[in-house]
């Protein structure tokens, strides 16, 4: 989807705030939102659907509201969509139904253990052999599509080289539609001059992880 989230290479953004304090959370709500995102999610969603729902936040909200605010809005939207709660229940803070779960309190050690358990593996078996090998020259799709995708605009229709291969992984374009397919995944390296023209330094390069259907042989 050619949305506001696809920011790579877009112009007009000012300097980066390099003097931000290093503490992990600047406001209490940031930590609470981070924690909730580790503990609870709509039962039938996946990471790509969650990302797509975040991409669909209105442009002005996406760019101007704080980061963890966008996580709150994304999680709220997925939960309303999956009928975990309604907008009325959210507004009143009162559940109109009996509890959906009875999650138990977790102590500090329990959190450390749960944290270790969410090192998810996104690789999946597939029946096909990878089409490309390290060193192959490939060209990326010139066009995007209306759904969720992980081929950014700045890397479309560009020629690169297969840098490494990672087995097959969940394919986001399908996962975001609830279809758990998988495709071979590669890291593809692009010369900065291929992406940005002659202004770029010829010694620089950009790599992206790209799924096989984003690529064609050249």
């Amino acid at each position, binding site marked *: 989807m050619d949305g506001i989230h696809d920011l*790579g290479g877009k112009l007009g953004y*000012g300097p980066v705030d390099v003097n931000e304090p290093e503490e992990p959370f600047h406001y209490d709500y940031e930590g609470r939102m981070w924690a909730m995102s580790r503990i609870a999610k709509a039962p039938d969603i996946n990471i790509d659907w969650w990302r797509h729902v975040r991409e669909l936040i209105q442009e002005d909200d996406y760019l101007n509201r704080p980061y963890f605010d966008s996580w709150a809005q994304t999680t709220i939207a997925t939960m309303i969509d999956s009928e975990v709660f309604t907008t009325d229940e959210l507004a009143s803070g009162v559940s109109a139904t009996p509890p959906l779960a009875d999650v138990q309190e977790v102590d500090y050690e329990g959190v450390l253990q749960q944290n270790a358990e969410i090192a998810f593996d996104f690789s999946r078996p597939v029946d096909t052999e990878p089409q490309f090998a390290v060193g192959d020259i490939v060209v990326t799709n010139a066009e995007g599509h209306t759904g969720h995708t992980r081929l950014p605009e*700045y890397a479309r229709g560009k020629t690169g080289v297969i840098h490494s291969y990672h087995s097959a992984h969940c394919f986001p374009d399908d996962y975001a539609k609830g279809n758990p397919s998988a495709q071979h995944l590669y890291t593809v390296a692009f010369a900065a001059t291929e992406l940005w023209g002659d202004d770029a330094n010829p010694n620089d390069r950009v790599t992206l992880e790209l799924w096989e259907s984003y690529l064609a042989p050249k």
Partner: protein
Amino acid sequence: MASFDQKKITEIHQHLHSHLPSDSALRVKALETILVEKGMVKSESIDRWVEVYADDIGPKRGAHVVARAWTDPAFKERLLADAASAVDEMGYKGPASGHLKAVENTDDTHNVVVCTLCSCYPFAILGMAPNWYKTAAYRARVVREPRAVLEEFGVKLAEDVGVHVWDSTAELRYIVIPQRPQGTENMSVEELAALVTRNSMIGTDRDLKVGA
């Protein structure tokens, strides 16, 4: 069931835009309140998660990975071959460590990490991402003009040092292994880890300071 329907989500967002409280803390509070009501979270557990990420899980984990790589060649080899297993070996497995990659700075290469499409970050070993990493400015600019962004961070690179930008578009996550500073030959792993900055493991810092 999730609808997986773009149009329906757009409508929900429009509704939320005008019906959610405008204050971010109140939005998050509303979510916590209803999730507690639904039996899906305990507020006490949220407190513990916040404590864990404030105290235990943060860039000091990554710094220990780097210091060990500097001092233990066999570990460094394992780290560069399969960083996910290497950090697991150190007890640092966690969110977004499942497909971790380590990339090494050299005299003629500088690595820097971004996620242009969202804000993917190796939480398990670097903790919470800084805000700047998640801003439109960083995401837009670092792929296109990495040298200008690095200069804002105080990193000035010679023209012949190649910048390698890693855009995390899948579930792979990156930690940059900065170069070990000169004059640290007699330092312990603990002392070395204290030299490693968070930004150096993202790639927005390069020359680590000794005795800073």
